[in-house]
């Protein structure tokens, strides 16, 4: 099972978990599994065409999947995946 580390803003859509597990031989398959378990994540991660939203970055073993094959990036059984949207805060206000 691949391990997905979620940012704080997405955790409420996964029952509050910081890390969730999903299976699949590619990122696409694992995201299918993940969003099957937690449907509210789907529109946050994927657009209407099923592609990754431009404002969300996904890293497999520390590499941006956009340079590794996008959703077709293969996942090892114990892959470490980090989901990362931009954060606003500089804590000025």
């Amino acid at each position, binding site marked *: 099972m691949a391990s997905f580390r979620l940012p704080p803003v997405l955790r409420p859509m996964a029952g509050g978990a910081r890390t969730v597990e999903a299976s699949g031989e590619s990122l696409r398959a694992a995201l299918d599994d993940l969003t099957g378990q937690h449907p509210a994540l789907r529109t946050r991660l994927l657009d209407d065409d099923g592609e990754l939203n431009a*404002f969300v970055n996904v890293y497999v073993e520390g590499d941006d999947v956009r340079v590794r094959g996008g959703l077709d990036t293969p996942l090892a059984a114990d892959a470490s995946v980090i989901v990362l*949207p931009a*954060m*606003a*805060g*500089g804590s000025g*206000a």
Partner: protein
Amino acid sequence: MASYQDLLAEVKSQISEVSAVDAAARLSSDEPPVLIDVREPDEFDQGAIDGSVHIPRGFLESRIGAVAPDLSTPIIISCQSGARSAFAVRSLEELGYEDVSSLATGFGGWKTAGLPWSTPKVLDAAQRARYSRHTLIPEVGEAGQLKLLGSTVLLVGAGGLGSPAGLYLAAAGVGTIAIVDADTVDESNLQRQVLHSMASIGLPKVDSAKQRIEELNPDVKVITYRERLTSENIDRMLEGVDVIVDGTDNFPTRYLLNDSSLRHRIPVVHASIFRFEGQLTVFKPYEGPCYRCLFPQPPPPELAPSCAEGGVLGVLPGIMGSLQASEALKLLLEIGEPPVGRLILFDALDTSFHEVRLRRDPECPVCGEDAGPIEYIDYEEFCLPPARAAT
């Protein structure tokens, strides 16, 4: 028992010496040796050979490794008359250095020969005391401290990140700190914005910050801009700036800052925070990715709540802002490896650091292969959610 003169004569007979004229020729060659001046600070301050590295004799053995890590580095050592440098040559040879010579007639002979020298810029006595823990570090030294004192950092935001960054940069002796922030201090700021205090509630943040920094270090000149960063004022604020520290709290400013930093080729030390987590990287124009390469589009508001909306652990900006100060100092000193092309993720809850690799986007609209001259856009419009932007 041998006298000092006997010992000096013996040492001089065993080492290599070089005349002032020959040393000058070698120093102006394509592969000049490292010139180390081992006199005391008060002697060095009154005049030295241009380009010489000052290491007082008593510190030579402990500090030479930082100046010449390779034992085959050609080295010339100078003192005032050629005596201390002769002993210093022998010490370096004992440490394994293979090509060390003594300037036979010292700095005195150099001046007599009419060769060029100057009075180096030096720290005054109070600065030597204040920055002694810096100057002891070989990678900083007095030259590095002088470089910091001659540097300018623009601090964008005097809030959670800007507070620790500003305080540490000021304490470190960054000579000019420009601060831009339009806000005033309120009570809810004090949980984390350590530049400010109860007494500054209601004051403009830039004024509160200036007062605190000037109390901390009178060497620092503070320039204040009590205004929002805009396409109209940013070019003026970036004149003469060496490093930008990004402590903004909103996306329009962040994209504007990115584009203007590319236009002016000034590195940005970026951090952002939320609840228990922070991100840090350095955007170095055209050497690594820019903010748009990382995030081509801002997220919808519900995916990027501000700290005012979602909260932040008070100490988190302390950690991330301190890291920003560290990276800014490294950039100014040109030492170490700033996280260019690396995004550092800190999680205070499990006390972990993760790192992901960032890459320049060849299709980036501002720094990509086909990007034209940088033109500022309407950043508020750019950051509106698509549905609202269309209306």
